[in-house]
């Protein structure tokens, strides 16, 4: 009996443990402080006990800690901080240095962060392009030197009075001692007021070249598994070039990427609102980071639900781990009918023929799905589909290219896909070639994008998934990219020469030419994002250095970006969403999976076909789209296949395929499919209304799958579909001419449009009409119309 109780207790009373974060703390200088976090763990859950913990220091003459876990220095030395919660305790050694050193607030590292945190320099206030009420700061403090002059000198020093600091307008207005359009930004007894007042009283020292430079951020806790309704305080620490750390929690800008799961206040206190996963992103002085908070759903998922998960490769391990952490049960394996249709559409943009479906369904071999994937990858249509996809990415169109250039660009992409050119080689071809754009189709990239600005923005978006356009005019307000980095990057493309030589266009590397930084009015050393600078005076082709950096296996963005794009193609949503926005503050819904896929892709020498095979072979890709009780709302953890509307070109081609009537595109040979068109400018209202991208800007949102009235009109009474259905040389007419039985006609239709046999109910519903003499053709056309306008047809599922 005793043993039984003990066993039960062991099972239900999970052991608790307490941890203090950060795990080591050094307070440097009299103003140093550190918000400590007491994190109680029980089973897989964490609980923030910072506010309920009993905090003590072993020597309060060295440092003090208040009831909220805020640690402050008193004298130099060492002490131990202890937190106690529920009888559990944890301790932390604290070193205090320079507690009595003179302290001067630094303009760059203290005053600007205060102004930023208080919103003074945000876009709606004095950070607006025109400023507010004559007072203009740089947006979120991107130019401390300019802000310094503005604050201390502009308008005859009206805002800062060194002679009488308390009278300074910046303090009077922000503390609302006198009327201020922006209201009270801080109180007179706040640290923020004191920082600015003491900085002014110290003579308002300017930003200096030797100021400690911020190197990065740390957040505590970085990850946590929490329960609905829980609260979690975050603490953020900045690391500086002089080796010191500073708690910057109160000056960080916090944002939740999923308010339904977690919201966060200005002080970094997170409130859990619901189940799922949220990233709380942190921005401080152009450095970014995020904390990941996981809140398992309140589902009862039996172990067998996970056991049924079709485990095929590491993708499934990592998806399953995520689903388990969230208490989500995966859907069941999709049927063979569903799989063959899905695979054809996702990999090659076509439907399987009725015959291919019948053969596949009749095949009983266990490896038939694997063989199907292999056969798809070798098809011409596979080449067409991926050529089209990369043509979208590289904006191949006759908008800016001549017809010959469109073809040479297209042919280069197609040849690359055909030989499965590794992705790094594909990119290198663009940035390392020179000569005629007719011979080197990739060079048309430089005909499309002629200036360093366009090249910088398109290249970073296409190959790195980074949107850095904001940094053209100022530091990115929510990201890490600075204006300086932008123009360092842009200068890599300032020596691309394009000239016309008769009918030929020649791209070549110039030996001179720079782009100036607009504020510094001088060129900066060409430097890839977070990369090493090139010598400004070197005459080597800067593109070569860029290409080497871009395709370096260690580049954190290059492989990750294309892996995410390919994943999104098959799974309906990128692990990072949107698929071309892989910025540091937009975390993946399953980071471990995206990292593993990226690593695997790099290890396999950027082999896109290998990546496609890995994804398609996974049990995850082969799950049914049908939800269970636990995963109805899951749209990001891949517990089921995400239903998606077919792309415009695929819809049109599929209609042509099922009706046996191709669409005619003026200037292209009969039988050319929409996915074989090299140029997005080919006129087609159908394609336009279904969201074909214009290929004007490199942005995945250019392609739309949103419904609209034009689409409805196209399918209800538009010529495109109706002419195909009623064509005398189409399949509807042919079936009757061949004298196929009513049963076989219906089967053919269902197999070719839905990749499945009709159900008995469906057969029965159409039988009478299809067997009535006189109306058979009409009935067949109506059936075809009903099927081709149905959701089952227009969607991949």
């Amino acid at each position: 009996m005793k043993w039984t109780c003990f066993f039960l207790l062991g099972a239900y009373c999970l052991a608790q443990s307490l941890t203090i974060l950060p795990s080591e703390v050094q307070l440097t200088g009299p103003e140093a402080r550190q918000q400590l976090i007491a994190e109680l763990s029980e089973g897989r859950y964490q609980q923030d006990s910072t506010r309920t913990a009993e905090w003590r220091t072993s020597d309060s003459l060295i440092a003090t800690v208040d009831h909220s876990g805020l640690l402050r220095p008193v004298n130099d030395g060492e002490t131990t901080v202890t937190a106690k919660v529920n009888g559990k305790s944890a301790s932390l050694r604290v070193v205090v240095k320079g507690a009595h050193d003179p302290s001067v607030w630094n303009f760059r590292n203290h005053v600007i962060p205060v102004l930023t945190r208080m919103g003074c320099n945000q876009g709606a206030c004095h950070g607006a392009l025109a400023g507010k009420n004559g007072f203009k700061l740089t947006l979120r403090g991107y130019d401390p030197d300019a802000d310094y002059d503005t604050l201390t000198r502009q308008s005859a020093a009206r805002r800062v009075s060194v002679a009488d600091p308390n009278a300074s307008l910046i303090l009077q207005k922000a503390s609302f001692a006198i009327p201020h359009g922006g209201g009270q930004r801080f109180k007179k007894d706040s640290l923020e007021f004191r920082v600015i007042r003491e900085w002014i009283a110290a003579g308002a020292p300017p930003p200096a070249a030797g100021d400690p430079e911020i190197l990065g951020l740390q957040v505590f806790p970085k990850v946590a598994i929490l329960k609905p309704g829980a609260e979690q305080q975050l603490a953020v620490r900045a690391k500086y070039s002089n080796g010191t750390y500073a708690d910057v929690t109160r000056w960080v800008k916090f944002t939740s990427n999923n308010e339904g799961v977690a919201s966060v206040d200005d002080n970094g206190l997170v409130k859990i609102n619901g189940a799922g996963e949220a990233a709380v992103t942190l921005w401080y002085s152009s450095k970014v980071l995020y904390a990941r908070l996981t809140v398992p759903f309140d589902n009862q998922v039996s172990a067998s639900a996970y056991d049924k998960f079709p485990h095929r490769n590491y993708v499934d391990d990592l998806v399953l781990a995520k689903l388990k952490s969230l208490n989500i049960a995966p859907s069941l394996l999709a049927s063979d009918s569903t799989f063959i249709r899905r695979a054809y559409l996702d990999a090659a943009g076509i439907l399987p023929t009725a015959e291919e479906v019948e053969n596949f369904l009749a095949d009983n071999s266990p490896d038939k799905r694997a063989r199907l994937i292999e056969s798809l990858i070798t098809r011409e249509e596979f080449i067409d589909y991926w050529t089209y996809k990369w043509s979208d990415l590289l904006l191949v169109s006759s908008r800016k290219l001549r017809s010959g250039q469109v073809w040479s660009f297209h042919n280069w992409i197609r040849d690359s896909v055909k030989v499965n050119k590794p992705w790094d080689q594909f990119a290198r071809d663009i940035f390392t070639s020179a000569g005629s754009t007719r011979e080197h189709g990739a060079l048309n990239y430089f005909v499309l994008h002629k200036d360093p600005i366009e090249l910088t923005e398109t290249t970073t978006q296409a190959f790195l998934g980074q949107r850095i356009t904001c940094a053209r005019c100022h530091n990115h307000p929510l990201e890490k990219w600075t204006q300086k980095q932008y123009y360092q990057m842009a200068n890599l493309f300032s020596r691309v020469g394009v000239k016309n030589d008769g009918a030929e266009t020649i791209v070549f590397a110039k030996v001179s030419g720079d782009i100036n930084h607009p504020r510094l009015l001088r060129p900066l050393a060409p430097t890839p994002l977070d990369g090493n600078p090139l010598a400004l005076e070197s005459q080597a082709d800067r593109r070569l250095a860029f290409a080497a950096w871009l395709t370096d296996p260690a580049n954190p963005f290059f492989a990750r970006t294309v892996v995410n794009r390919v994943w999104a193609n098959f799974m309906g949503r990128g692990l990072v969403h949107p698929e071309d926005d892989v910025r540091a503050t937009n975390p993946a819904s399953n980071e471990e999976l995206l990292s593993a896929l990226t690593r695997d892709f790099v290890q396999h020498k950027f082999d896109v076909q290998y990546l496609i095979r890995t994804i398609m072979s996974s049990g995850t890709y082969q799950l049914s789209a049908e939800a269970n009780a636990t995963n109805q709302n899951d749209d990001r953890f891949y517990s089921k296949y995400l239903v998606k509307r077919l792309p415009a070109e695929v819809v049109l081609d599929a209609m042509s395929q099922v009706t046996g009537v191709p669409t005619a595109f003026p200037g292209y040979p009969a039988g050319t499919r929409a996915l074989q068109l090299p140029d997005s400018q080919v006129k087609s209202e159908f394609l336009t209304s279904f969201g074909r991208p214009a290929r004007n800007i490199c942005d995945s949102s250019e392609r739309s799958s949103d419904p609209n009235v034009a689409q409805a009109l196209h399918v209800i009474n538009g010529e495109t579909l109706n002419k195909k259905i009623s064509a005398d040389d189409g399949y509807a007419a042919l079936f009757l001419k061949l004298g196929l039985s009513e049963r076989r006609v219906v089967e053919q239709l269902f197999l070719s449009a839905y990749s499945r046999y009709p159900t008995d109910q469906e057969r029965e519903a159409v039988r009478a009409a299809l067997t009535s003499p006189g109306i058979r053709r009409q009935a067949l056309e109506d059936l075809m119309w009903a099927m081709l306008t149905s959701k089952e047809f227009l969607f991949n599922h």
Partner: protein
Amino acid sequence: MGTLALLLAGLAAGHSPAAPVYSLAWSPDGSLLAAGSFRQVRLLDRRAQTLAVLEPHADAVRAIAISPDGKWLAAAGGLPARKGEVRIWDLSTRTLVRTITGHADCIYAAVFSPDNRTLATASYDKLIKIWDITTGAEVRTLKDHIDAVYALAFTTDGKRLISGAADRSVKVWNPATGERLYTFSDATDGINALAVDPTGTMVAAGGLDKSIRVWKLGERGGELINTLIAHEDAILALAWSPDGRRIVSSSADRSVKLFNAADLTELQAIPQTDWVYSVRFSPDSSVFAAGRYDGTVQIYPSK
């Protein structure tokens, strides 16, 4: 660069660190230079000796004017975002004659009319006010600017008052009636400074667009006759030499430049250690004084 005539350091002794020199004015006979600082005006002789300190004032003295007859010194300023204040001092006795309080914000420019009867002031409150010197009464308010007014100048005949503002405009007024006669809208950013030539037929303006523009003044309109991108940052102050030959400018690019007034040819660029808020030619045009943010005044030969 030329010889330095004088260097006056630590104008605002007693304030630590030194308060900026916001404003300068020469007496008509050139014997005295008045420098506006934090809550005080310091009167200096040509050897840089302090003759007197006029105080107190509400806050920084952002504008100084000495009447053409040499009798009055107007020190203008006030509290930013709260009020404007002008103190009129009798220069011979160095005593305070009266304090004028007006405007809803501090004053950035003050000029006496050539007939010594009125004083015009311009403020961050977007208004220009004309005051009767003898009574301190407000004569009228000129209202047309839509942003802070930073600069004012009378033509030598007193028939025109010209204003420059953060709204990018230069406006020409009839001070006798308060009528706005016309507006120059050529500048592409806010105006900080104005200077009128001694004949009263031309006005120069400079500001955030880094350019000096010179217009010819007509009866009912004017004409832009010269433009020069003169500096690498905002122009802060301008002066036109009384002999008509030179224009001097100071800029946030931390330089002072001397130009040939007729064609804006740059004659000299003098690097500065800090912002120069005020430049003023001596009445004989032989030198000009520059008052800096760091509390110093420097006097340069004007070539």
